[in-house]
């Protein structure tokens, strides 16, 4: 108790010291005097004291629960595996619920709300794409936005020069972005971890700088305006109608991306990615071509970014290099990490939080980034594995006489 009071007091004093120039001093430029708002110190001190107390309490509780769950895992294997199966079902229903709710939502929302939700869902797909590269294959990619830019500019330029439409641009941009993904993948095959991150970061910047400076082709920093929205079977919709239509397109894309990711996850390819993440040497020793696996991950991840790039160009009807800064990559990466590496539902939840929260916190505009930052810190301290830990697919085998079967299997193969 005394120990706690001492610790919290020290923290309170430290915070008072840190925030002193900001919250106490106020310079009045007109009267040329300095206001001392001493009462603010009191609030900072009390606030810091209690928050540090609560922080320590939760940290202690977390450590205790970590320890007890570790013990459980070793002992009762059967019960934990049953628990996991249940969880998968829960997730399926949760997903279905979200889907139904999402389908009805635009009918009741203003165009502004719909637009925010469209953005959030774009980030869901981007998150799912990057999730393949970072979450499953464990290749830290900080230049993911490059593929997003490739997609957006593909549509923008194809439309500008050849008048190609939205739907035809989607597969073209997807394939083109995937090729860029593979192209980037080839030189970084031997890199891992920090080194890979630096190279991909550089790649992202290169793409942005090329878009900015290659005026002849990309129109430079002024960007490409007037990119058309997709027409609904040839019918031009109004502004609100367009938004609703885009909403359903992106909803469909989210569902497709989700189903595809889930299926890939529990397939031969998905397993090879996870194996690659877990241990590259063992992965190769098990007969997996790590080159192919890595390039497939880069390519498929980029594929989704390319498609969403087209969608982004159509939604905002304007693309410029300004939209594809490192900040975008960082947000997408945050979504993957916050959601839980490799977890599909986690990505959806995290995209919701990271994109919607800043929007809805606009009424406290001055503090929203502060809250955003604090939230990230709290998350990483208390749930470093992400919001939703990825649960591995469970396999079962119908009971048969295993010994006979084993003999059969081996005789058939030799």
């Amino acid at each position, binding site marked *: 108790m005394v120990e706690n009071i001492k610790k919290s007091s020290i923290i309170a004093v430290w915070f008072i010291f840190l925030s002193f120039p900001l919250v106490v001093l106020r310079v009045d430029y007109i009267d040329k005097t300095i206001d001392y708002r001493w009462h603010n110190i009191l609030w900072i001190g009390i606030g810091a004291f209690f928050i540090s107390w609560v922080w320590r309490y939760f940290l202690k509780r977390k450590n205790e629960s970590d320890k007890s769950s570790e013990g459980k*895992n*070793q002992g009762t*294997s*059967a019960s*934990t*595996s049953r628990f*996991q*199966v249940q969880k998968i079902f829960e997730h399926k229903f949760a997903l279905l619920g979200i889907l139904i709710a999402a389908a009805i939502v635009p009918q009741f929302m203003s165009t502004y709300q719909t637009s925010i939700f469209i953005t959030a869902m774009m980030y869901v797909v981007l998150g799912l794409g990057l999730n393949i590269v970072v979450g499953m294959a464990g290749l830290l990619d900080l230049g993911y936005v490059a593929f997003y830019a490739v997609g957006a500019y593909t549509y923008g330029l194809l439309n500008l020069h050849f008048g190609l439409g939205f739907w035809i641009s989607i597969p073209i941009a997807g394939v083109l972005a995937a090729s860029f993904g593979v192209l980037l993948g080839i030189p970084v095959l031997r890199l891992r971890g920090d080194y890979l991150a630096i190279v991909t970061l550089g790649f992202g910047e290169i793409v942005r700088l090329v878009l900015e400076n290659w005026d002849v082709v990309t129109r430079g920093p002024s960007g490409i305006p007037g990119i058309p929205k997709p027409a609904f079977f040839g019918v031009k919709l109004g502004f609100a109608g367009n938004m609703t239509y885009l909403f359903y397109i992106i909803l469909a894309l989210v569902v497709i991306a989700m189903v*595809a990711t889930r*299926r*890939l996850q529990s*397939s*031969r*390819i*998905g*397993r*090879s990615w*996870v*194996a690659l993440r*877990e*241990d590259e*040497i*063992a*992965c*190769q*020793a*098990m*007969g*997996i*071509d*790590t080159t192919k696996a890595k390039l*497939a991950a880069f390519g*498929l991840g980029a594929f989704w970014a390319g498609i969403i790039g087209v969608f982004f160009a159509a939604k905002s009807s304007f693309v410029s290099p300004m939209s594809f800064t490192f900040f975008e990559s960082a947000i997408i990466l945050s979504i993957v990490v916050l959601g839980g590496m490799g977890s599909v539902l986690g990505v959806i939840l995290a995209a919701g939080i990271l994109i919607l929260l800043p929007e809805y916190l606009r009424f406290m505009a001055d503090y929203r980034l502060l809250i955003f930052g604090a939230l990230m810190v709290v998350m990483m301290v208390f749930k470093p594995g992400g919001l939703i830990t990825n649960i*591995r*697919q*469970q*396999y079962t*085998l119908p009971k048969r006489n*295993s*010994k006979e*079967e*084993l*003999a059969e*299997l*081996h005789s058939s*193969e*030799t």
Partner: protein
Amino acid sequence: MAVVLKTDKITKSFGGLLALDEMTLDFREQEIVALIGPNGAGKTTFFNNITGMYTPTSGTVEIFPPNQKSVKIQGMKPNLITELGLARTFQNIRLFGNMTVIENVMVGRHCRTKSHIFGAVFQTSSFKREEKESVEKSFALLEMINMSHLAGNLAKNLSYADQRRLEIARALATDPFLLLLDEPAAGMNPQETEDLDQLIVHLRDELKITILLIEHDMKLVMKISDRIFVMNQGRLIAQGTPVEIQNNPEVIKAYLGE
């Protein structure tokens, strides 16, 4: 008995250090061969050279897969060598910790299956069939090592001995004709070592696999090996049956000094 793997004067040097010095030996069909020697003798380096982890500085490694033409494999990529039928385990366990037990074994099936992204996304019938076969085969292997009840657990939560046995199952999933075990009994208690010894003999007799093992547990080595190779300072100093090795003065000198 037919030879399944032959090395001809393979040498490996790291800078000035000669880790392997003209190692020439061969393994025959369906035998258990042990590779022993003091620490730092180059046993694991030898493993790494024949499984493609390292490229030998000179010399050749030739394998003779059953019913196939012989292949010179020195310098090939490890995954291709595994595809040809050489599987290995690791001295410091290298399982995929965050995957389940059954998935670890299924990863071993990777090089024997073909389905790709398209098949997985659209759940084609050939994908489903292949997936089902993988699951069945993997369960069968887990049954063999008595671990099918642990199939849904994460590999990192297994006990040490179980992890070692799972590594063997994972290696077996690649359908090898030659299995290389790097210190499979390290860290096991006598009962677990006993089980392991039965498993290894079972692999040779029932699955007709040639087994090469590096091991420090001399009781185990002398009990199950058909032939033993002894290495010291990168060189092969003796070979023969367990009895011959036990009475070989060179070997005694290497282990106990003069």
